């Protein structure tokens, strides 16, 4: 509520400032024109020395330019301020979500430890509880790792391992890993098509991409989980289309879905947990590969399709992919010596 008022105050101040300088400009023009008319009519009679010359025109035009520049600067500042306000709001949401994501596994671990400490737990239950604790500690680790890695990615501190791969083989390997990690039944994920072309990729980074997409498909499939992946190469790009039959994403949300801290709040969404970092991370990884990711959905309950495009090695974005390979080799050499 306070933030809404802050925004309203900013808008009011901005509008008042604009009115103030427009009025100033109006008065200035009025003053200049009226003086000009007087000079035209009686200037010569009053004093032959008073002549209207080019310096005054320069001052007038220069002043106008400066005023426009001030207005432009103010508009930019206002826009920047709004972006900051929006970011702060998203950041507040993120803090709320991250607190929840950290506290839930921690509560669970604490509960099991206190259970062991306060009552007798039969051996078969002990095993079950220890496994649950391990799952929770892994969840905590993943969450902390993701936050640290996104931060490192933003500051270009990640030592990527870019290599030339056969796109089809690489994708199949990564997708098989995701299937294993999420213990998906064989008929849940259907992989079609071929991609017999080469691309430059960091296999670990792409694993993060596909794990995030599979994780989202699981979270946002209210009824039946079904994932379709289509692979193909066109003239310049390796194209991967990742579709699910989940709850879908509305058109306005599609625009923001890759933004940092962005989360969709909808009553029909079966899972309310998350940090708003997953798809931002995915986008950043694909961007670092010189690729593009986009999302499409026909609407509610009609599923979602993510389309990933990566440049084909030696065909598209030649200089950039060479640069990726070069920095990988450079880092390797540095670590060797």
């Amino acid at each position: 509520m306070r933030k809404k008022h802050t925004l309203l105050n900013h808008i009011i101040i901005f509008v008042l400032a604009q009115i103030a300088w427009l009025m100033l400009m109006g008065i200035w023009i009025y003053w200049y024109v009226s003086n000009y008319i007087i000079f035209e009519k009686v200037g010569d009679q009053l004093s032959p020395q008073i002549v209207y010359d080019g310096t005054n025109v320069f001052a007038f035009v220069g002043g106008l330019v400066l005023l426009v520049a001030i207005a432009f600067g103010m508009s930019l500042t206002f826009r920047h301020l709004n972006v900051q306000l929006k970011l702060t709001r998203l950041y507040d949401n993120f803090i709320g979500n991250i607190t929840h994501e950290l506290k839930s596994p921690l509560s669970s671990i604490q509960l099991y430890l206190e259970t062991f400490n306060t009552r007798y737990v039969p051996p078969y239950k002990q095993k079950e509880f220890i496994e649950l604790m391990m799952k929770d500690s892994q969840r905590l680790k993943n969450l902390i790792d993701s936050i640290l890695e996104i931060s490192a990615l933003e500051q270009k501190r990640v030592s990527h391992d870019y290599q030339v791969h056969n796109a089809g083989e690489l994708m199949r390997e990564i997708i098989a890993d995701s299937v294993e990690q999420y213990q998906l039944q064989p008929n849940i994920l259907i992989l079609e098509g071929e991609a017999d072309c080469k691309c430059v990729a960091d296999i670990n980074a792409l694993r993060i991409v596909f794990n995030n997409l599979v994780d989202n498909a699981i979270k946002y499939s209210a009824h039946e989980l079904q994932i379709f992946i289509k692979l193909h190469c066109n003239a310049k790009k390796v194209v991967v289309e990742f579709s699910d039959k989940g709850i879908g994403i509305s058109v306005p949300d599609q625009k923001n879905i890759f933004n940092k801290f962005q989360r969709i709040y909808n009553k029909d969404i079966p899972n309310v947990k998350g940090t708003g970092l997953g798809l931002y991370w995915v986008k950043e990884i694909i961007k670092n590969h010189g690729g593009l990711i986009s999302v499409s959905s026909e609407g509610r309950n009609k599923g979602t399709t993510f389309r990933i495009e990566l440049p084909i090695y030696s065909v598209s974005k030649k200089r950039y992919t060479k640069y990726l390979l070069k920095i990988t080799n450079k880092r390797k050499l540095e670590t060797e010596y």
Partner: protein
Amino acid sequence: MFEENLSKSKILLVEDEENLAIGLEYNLSEEGYYVKVAKDGREAIKIFEKEEFDLILLDLMLPYLNGFEVAEKIREITPQIPILVLTAKKSTEDKIQGLELGVDDYMTKPFHLGELLLRIKGMLKRKMWYKTLTASSPVYILGQNEINFENMICKTKNGEIQLTKNEAMVLRYLIDNEGRVVDRKELLENVWHLNPEIETRTVDNFISRLRKYLEPDPSNPIYIKSIRGAGYIFTT
């Protein structure tokens, strides 16, 4: 004295974190309670409509319907059931919203198992106390008002009003302590069983609602009077 009956109590656990739900279910079952688990808000309401429970252990961040919405719907069905919120949210606004909706107690995650079990026991005991007390004298006449503490319906000159559980318990507490000054902290500790440092404004809201229901002129109360700097006193 209620110990034996307490262990047969039925608890509805509404928690979408599966790992936490398993641990809680185990511990509550070990204490002798019958536990049913709901993984989201919709399921909680469905189960609650079919079965009778003695206490609800409720998370707030739930799929489909959040904990506040669940509490509201549950209160509509059974106004007197004790609700204990167990959540990662710890802002004062959330606590106040919960208390306003008639949530009885509020614990934040991560929590201590011993404390949770004690609070559950305390709430169940209070429920039994209230039940026993109202069973002996369920109807209380106050001026033109007739208060039924069993179904928590208050008949006033303006018609029937459904009291919330906390409203009924505040009133019952004041009636039981007729003629004695009861301060806000005492009410918070005995009705809500909360740390009195949290929010005494909540008590004032409840008192002002009770006055609106029962007093002929709520601005000049004759039954529930304020004692400046001390608290409230109930007189007839």
